[in-house]
């Protein structure tokens, strides 16, 4: 079953090709034929000449990034985008969510829907749709939200995963908090699962773990691609009965997004080491899993600076996370293990009821996927997709800043120009405060 990816805006169209790069090189080098075939089927379709063409639609309101991504892929020789799979306009959305959502989205609805339809029809069976975008700008966020709405209307029974890139806390775009709040409030109603990467976190991984001196967006995007691909590549799941799972998005959503108020997912991958050190590193499952578990518990997004003092509260102390304890309560977790000796990995630590909320049993809250095929040059790789309080702080900060700006009425005239009213803003703020409240009350 195949996933159709819709890349939206500059970010979506810069991260997307990195994801396809990782998947195609992983699928080429993999020794297991079944794995390669499954990976290829999931993300590419093969032309009669044997070329891999990504199952993707590229959308942007200005042409530069799409042109760059398409030509780069073609030059790689490993895979390419479909010739007619992209749509761009001349003039961008000006970082204005309202411009994207109210003007560009509706204006180009038919064309985009047609492009998606063509990709979907090329799939033997559709596993679902993945929309990739950022929340800070105008196109990814505004047009992305509108497109997600159209996808939901057109494919009501399909799974929709939104992959979002959250901007650096210290601005890339001044009105990024407005754009983010508007996007998240709408997506919450439309999406099955919202998988988030934060630029700040990934930037730190590049600097501290990968030792990159001058971090570029390319580096950041490659880490995001590595983490996302480690989740989406074929794996043996509980439902798949010995073969590679054919319903990755569905299983992801049912494993993690079990409640409509809780849809935000974060990702953590271990190990992450510079490629120069890989030859000298040995990894063991017990060590990797121990670190990963503590990263979850203490809400650390990378293997450095983990606070080992944080513990899940014992038995009776279940009245919400005490302030300042640093403990990150989970609703549900999905662990994906790839590589050598994966069947011997001991994952009991993740089934501890103390990690989870009281109203889900650990059997329901924890899911495990495995693949014996090593991933992206790592002999062993463990990825944890969490529905937990991990994103609560950044979300709360984002809403707080947006609210302060809203209280001063700053920039509102720019949005009202395109049809968004103060009422609309208030509705979105209310929705997101609801999400914040739900996550902070998790116990």
């Amino acid at each position, binding site marked *: 079953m195949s996933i159709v990816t819709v890349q939206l805006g*500059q970010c979506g169209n810069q991260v997307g090709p990195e994801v396809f790069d990782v998947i195609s090189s992983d699928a080429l080098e993999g020794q297991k034929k079944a794995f390669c075939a499954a990976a290829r089927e999931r993300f590419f379709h093969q032309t009669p000449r044997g070329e891999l063409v990504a199952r993707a639609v590229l959308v942007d309101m*200005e*042409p*530069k*990034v799409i042109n*760059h991504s398409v030509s780069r892929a073609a030059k790689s020789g490993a895979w390419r985008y479909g010739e007619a799979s992209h749509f761009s*306009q*001349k*003039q*961008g959305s*000006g*970082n*204005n969510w309202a411009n994207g959502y109210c003007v560009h989205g509706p204006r180009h609805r038919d064309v985009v829907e047609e492009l998606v339809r063509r990709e979907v029809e090329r799939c033997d069976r559709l596993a679902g749709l993945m929309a990739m975008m950022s929340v800070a700008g*105008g196109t990814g966020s505004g047009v992305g939200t509108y497109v997600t709405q159209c996808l939901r209307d057109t494919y009501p029974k399909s799974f929709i995963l939104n992959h979002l890139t959250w901007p*650096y*806390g*210290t*601005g*890339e*775009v*001044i*009105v990024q908090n407005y754009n983010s709040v508007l996007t998240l409030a709408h997506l919450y109603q439309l999406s099955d699962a919202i998988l988030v990467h934060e630029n700040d976190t990934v*930037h730190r991984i590049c*600097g501290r773990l990968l030792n990159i001196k*001058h*971090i*570029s*967006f*390319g580096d*950041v995007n490659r880490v995001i691609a590595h983490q996302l691909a480690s989740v989406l590549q074929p794996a043996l799941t509980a439902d798949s009965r010995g073969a590679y799972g054919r319903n990755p998005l569905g299983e992801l959503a049912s494993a993690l997004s079990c409640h409509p108020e809780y849809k935000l997912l974060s990702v953590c991958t271990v190990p992450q080491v510079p490629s120069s050190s890989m030859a000298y590193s040995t990894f063991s499952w017990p060590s990797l899993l121990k670190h990963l578990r503590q990263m979850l518990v203490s809400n650390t997004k990378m293997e450095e600076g983990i606070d080992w003092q944080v513990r899940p509260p014992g038995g009776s102390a279940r009245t919400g996370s005490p302030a300042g304890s640093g403990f990150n309560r989970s609703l549900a977790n999905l662990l994906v293990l790839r590589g050598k000796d994966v069947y011997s990995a001991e994952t009991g630590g993740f089934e501890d009821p103390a990690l989870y909320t009281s109203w889900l049993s650990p059997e329901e809250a924890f899911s495990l996927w495995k693949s014996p095929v090593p991933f992206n040059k790592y002999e062993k790789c463990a990825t944890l997709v969490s529905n937990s309080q991990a994103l609560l702080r950044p979300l709360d900060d984002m*809403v*707080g*800043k947006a*609210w*302060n*700006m*809203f*209280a*001063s*009425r*700053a*920039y509102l*005239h*720019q949005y009202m120009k395109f049809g968004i009213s103060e009422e609309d803003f208030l509705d979105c*703020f*209310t929705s997101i*405060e*609801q999400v914040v*409240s739900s996550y902070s*009350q998790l116990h």
Partner: protein
Amino acid sequence: MTQSVVVQVGQCGNQVGCRFWDLALREHAHVNKKGMYDEALRSFFRNVDSRMIIDCVARNGYTICAGLTLAYLNPQAVLVDMEEGVVNEILQGPLREMFDSTQLLTDVSGSGNNWAVGHMTYGSAYREQIVDKLRKAAEHCDCLQCFFIIHSMGGGTGSGLGTKVLSLLEEEFPEVCRIVSSIYPSAEDDVVTSPYNSVLAMRELTEHADCVLPVENQSLVDIVNKIKQMSHAGRPGSVIRRDSTLISGQGGLSGAEKPFDAMNNIVANLLLNITSSARFDGSLNMDLNEIAMNLVPFPRLHYLVPSLTPLYTLADVSVPTRRLDQMFSDSFSKDHQLIRADPKRGLYLACALMVRGNVHVSDLRRNIERMKPSLPFVSWNQEGWKTGLCSVPPVGHSHSLLALANNTCVMSTFMELRERFTKLYRKKAHLHHYLHVEGMEQSMFSEAVGSLSSLIEEYYLLDATKGRLVPDAPRLRIAR
């Protein structure tokens, strides 16, 4: 790719405009080695002949455009002046083949340094023709994103007719962004009535422009002097690359430098840098409509203080990172602003940094972190930074930075202007020249100064919050 149309009005506007086209050609010749008409050129030039257009000839180590083939390039511009002198000079200079007569609008007698003559008399007399020429220029564009208006505030044509053009643009093309580069007169300006002209024009700018980039003549003079001092210091280890200074037109077409060229080159470079991300590739593109969106929190407060760094590049390549950091520090210093104000003493409402050249996002972030503590930002926009990275550096530099700050320090420029205006107005000096013009009434003066005062007041109220601890607005509470 989007296109922009440049409208240059008056003597100053046309002189700056002329430098702009010269430097733009230089920049494109530098980047565009094959001489093909590419997307980047398209943003400012129309191709009137589909054959190969730029014949790049290497001469004395610099690459210039051969004069002949310029005939194939037509700048997207409208040149307006009520005297023929400056436009005629352009038509006799090396750029002559690029312009065609339908882009020009001239008259003979000038506006006599009188805003009313420019705005009312010529404004109504030439209204049809102006709209016509603007429409033609717009029709040639595939996707018109922005109008750039270049003019001065102190005279009659640039100030009066220029602002009339601005309001015509708003009427005819309401969706196209209007960015105005206004040259403000210095206190010792030789035009006695410049305060009147400037204040009358200010009102139009506040009401009809999307963004204004104010530039003060005095700042340009100071920067020019600084560079010349540096060039002549001749200290070992500080030899400057000739073509790299902000004021140099070297490598362009015009031969000898004319008196105001150095100052005008600075403004021309400002326009080139603002549009760089729209023309060339980069890892973080910043379009022109994003500038207005991010930097203008309230519709009338759209005055953005520009600063350009570096002023020059040293000839020998020293420690790269330190030079980069120095560039960031300089761009917030008082001496590098294009108006005489100190942004560090004012309050930032928002700030945009457009970086060109080989700079990584990590360098950018590091420098923002470094500079932030010393820059006061308004309470609801503590992280009010908009950043853009364009990979193509300007000619002669490996990297450069343009900062556009929406900062309350513009208040001081406006207050000085108002003072100079009041000095004259109190005595009713020279008023009769204006009131004699048909359509002009005394109430326009009081309304104009009123508009200026309320603008100053708005900035003042925001500035007053500086340093005060403003509590966060209470958040919505969700019932459980």
